[in-house]
């Protein structure tokens, strides 16, 4: 853009017109309109504000965030961090925020996977697969999410009790207390192995970058997978083995009226996750399908004509182009999952909205409670869209 030569006649600034104090002058009109609109909006806001201040005085409600340090006395069923009802409101709200993030992150990952599979299945040459995916997408998108959540929650609650729990796979129990899964007896060796895996990933990434740079210079392809296998496969296993290779699982067992051991996925979390993932996958499937269809057929054919094998065609030619179409609407779906997770309050999963709502009912601090909810979601929304914008700019088509 900047390199194109501009006609020198256009470079000249337009002649300055004198400001006339008349309705015929566009600039005067602009100023008047702005003053008018800002004035009206300002008056309304001021009116609401003064009413609020007056009402708060009349009802003797003290404003401020001082209540956050008070003892909450609010039981929370599931929490990522340690929490007891004697902790402060601030701690309770943090627990809620973490619960929101937990369901949002897991939901985003699972619905992306499921949505991509269904979107590709809808383009399948197998008629049955394509039709079934189409029916799934049409039905799931035309039912309110809240209805779906209540439906799944009802089904999970009507499951048999722990004593008659269903056991689809040995060690996995499904009952009205939720889903019980066996889990590794976590030790330092596992943490260190995870750390080694992370290190391996970083090493692989750097190696791949260097290999690509060298390939651009001399045209010789270099194998990346041996390094990747060594750094991300062998290294963690070696670390784990060196520390004694601990391998004891914590199996859930029926003791009395409930299960002991293993990890629990509560019915509330399970229903919320199930509803969010199934619902959002329907939308993501359509986005993925549109993205793949947006790549012209000629691109596939040209890539094949160059002698690339099908995997290369998909990875290096089609996917990069499809992603450009997919990323922006996908961003809004990720935002939707996060915002929709607030429906948790309807089925009793204690996310930030649920805990803030209980807090404002207990303390009477309505304004602060809602301000906290809004602030949290605005921050999350803004961070997700900033990240996705950055990613989108990175993969965007670089034009002249």
């Amino acid at each position: 853009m900047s390199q194109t030569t501009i006609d020198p006649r256009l470079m000249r600034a337009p002649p300055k017109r004198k400001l006339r104090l008349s309705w015929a002058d566009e600039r005067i009109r602009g100023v008047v309109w702005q003053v008018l609109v800002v004035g009206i909006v300002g008056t309304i806001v001021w009116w609401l504000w003064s009413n609020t201040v007056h009402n708060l005085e009349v009802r003797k409600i003290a404003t401020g965030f001082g209540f956050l340090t008070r003892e909450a006395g609010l039981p929370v069923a599931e929490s990522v961090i340690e929490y007891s009802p004697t902790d402060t409101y601030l701690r309770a709200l943090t627990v809620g925020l973490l619960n929101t993030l937990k369901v949002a992150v897991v939901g985003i990952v699972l619905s992306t996977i499921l949505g991509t599979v269904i979107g590709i299945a809808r383009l399948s040459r197998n008629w049955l697969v394509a039709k079934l995916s189409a029916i799934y997408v049409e039905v799931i998108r035309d039912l309110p999410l809240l209805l779906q959540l209540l439906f799944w929650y009802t089904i999970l609650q009507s499951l048999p009790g722990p004593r008659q729990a269903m056991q689809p796979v040995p060690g996995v129990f499904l009952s009205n207390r939720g889903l019980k899964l066996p889990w590794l007896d976590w030790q330092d060796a596992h943490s260190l192995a995870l750390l080694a895996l992370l290190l391996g990933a970083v090493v692989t990434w750097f190696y791949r970058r260097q290999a690509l740079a060298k390939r651009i210079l001399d045209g010789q392809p270099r194998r990346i997978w041996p390094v990747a296998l060594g750094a991300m496969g062998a290294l963690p296993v070696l670390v784990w083995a060196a520390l004694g290779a601990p391998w004891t699982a914590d199996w859930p067992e029926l003791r009395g009226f409930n299960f002991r051991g293993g990890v629990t996925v509560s019915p509330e979390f399970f229903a919320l996750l199930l509803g969010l993932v199934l619902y959002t996958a329907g939308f993501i499937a359509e986005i993925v399908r549109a993205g793949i269809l947006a790549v012209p057929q000629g691109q596939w054919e040209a890539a094949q004509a160059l002698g690339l094998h099908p995997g290369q065609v998909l990875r290096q030619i089609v996917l990069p182009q499809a992603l450009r179409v997919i990323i922006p609407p996908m961003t809004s779906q990720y935002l939707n999952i996060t915002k929709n997770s607030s429906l948790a309050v309807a089925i009793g999963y204690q996310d930030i909205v649920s805990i803030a709502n209980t807090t404002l009912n207990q303390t009477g601090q309505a304004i602060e409670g809602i301000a906290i909810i809004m602030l949290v979601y605005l921050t999350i929304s803004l961070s997700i869209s900033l990240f996705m914008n950055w990613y989108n700019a990175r993969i965007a088509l670089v034009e002249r």
Partner: protein
Amino acid sequence: MSDVTLETAAAKVPEAAPRSPPASQIGLLAWLRTNLFSSWLNSAVTLLIAYLVVRWTIGFVEWGIVNAVWSVPDNQTQACRDLKGIGACWAVITEKHRFILFGTYPYEEHWRPALCVLLFVGLYTVSAMRRFWRKELALVWVATLTAIGVLMWGGILGLPYVPQERWGGLVITLILATFGLALAFPLAVLVALGRRSRLPAIKALCVLYVELIRGVPLISLLFMASVMFPLFLPEGMNIDKLLRAQIAIILFAGAYLAEVVRGGLQALPKGQYEAAEALGLSYWQKTGFIILPQALRLVIPPLVNTFIGFFKDTSLVLIIGIFDLLTAGKTAIIEPAWQGFGVEVYLTVGAIYFVFCFAMSKYSQSLEAELNRHRNR
């Protein structure tokens, strides 16, 4: 000569092996082969899926029809309980359908909300037909919505007065969605124009409004409407809960619709703006006669899609305790006699939502195809 050469040439060619005729390209068998059994993997997938579909369909038919209980004598749900889940208890629908559809509206007056539902459906149908896309349509909307208000409240024309607290069911869902759209739409057009305005203060206000609303979930706005709104008003003044929720939905829908309308404004070629200015039209003339008619036509399909979204989102009023279709369904199974039959109720309520949303989404797709027809030539 030539005969001889031909003969020798023919003798050199080995006799062709008998070939079977090429596989048929038409007919049921060919269709099955190309679409279902084109390869080993495809055949395996087809068979597996077909097996699962048939099994689940049979299971559902057994549960929903064969083993189902359709009615029980006055709230004696023992017959349903005896099924122990092997059959559906549609008796809950037989018993509670009036409650689910109309909530606590006085029983002998149920024809009024029923008529309102029909009016709403008629209004949607008329609005969907392109031959009625004229200025008079706005008048039809005003007239119908007024008629609905009169029917619901009553108090005149010999209709007994019914307070708003007793309204409920499907009609509330339709009211929230339709009034929400009708009032949010003008707001959205203004905000969209404001966001494209050259006046910095107006642009900033519109950007702030849209981004603020779109960044928070609808629930937080509904909470605000139910908990905080009373604090905003002067002492003694009070607005009922339904209206407060309606305002929250309008503000919410306004921000989303504004973005859709802005898409249309941006898609319009710049030449249209410049040509209108060159003709010497004022801003409002330019906007009203040249820009909006074209821009809005461009965004009708996404507008319908947004409307489907709001239709579904009105169900969120359940959380602040307003009696819409979903709340009515949820309340119907609170009674001890009917506890545990949630699946049947939610399937029924879901079917009602589905009919409305599916009709709208099919309409939006056909409209999109129709409006884009000139591009595909």
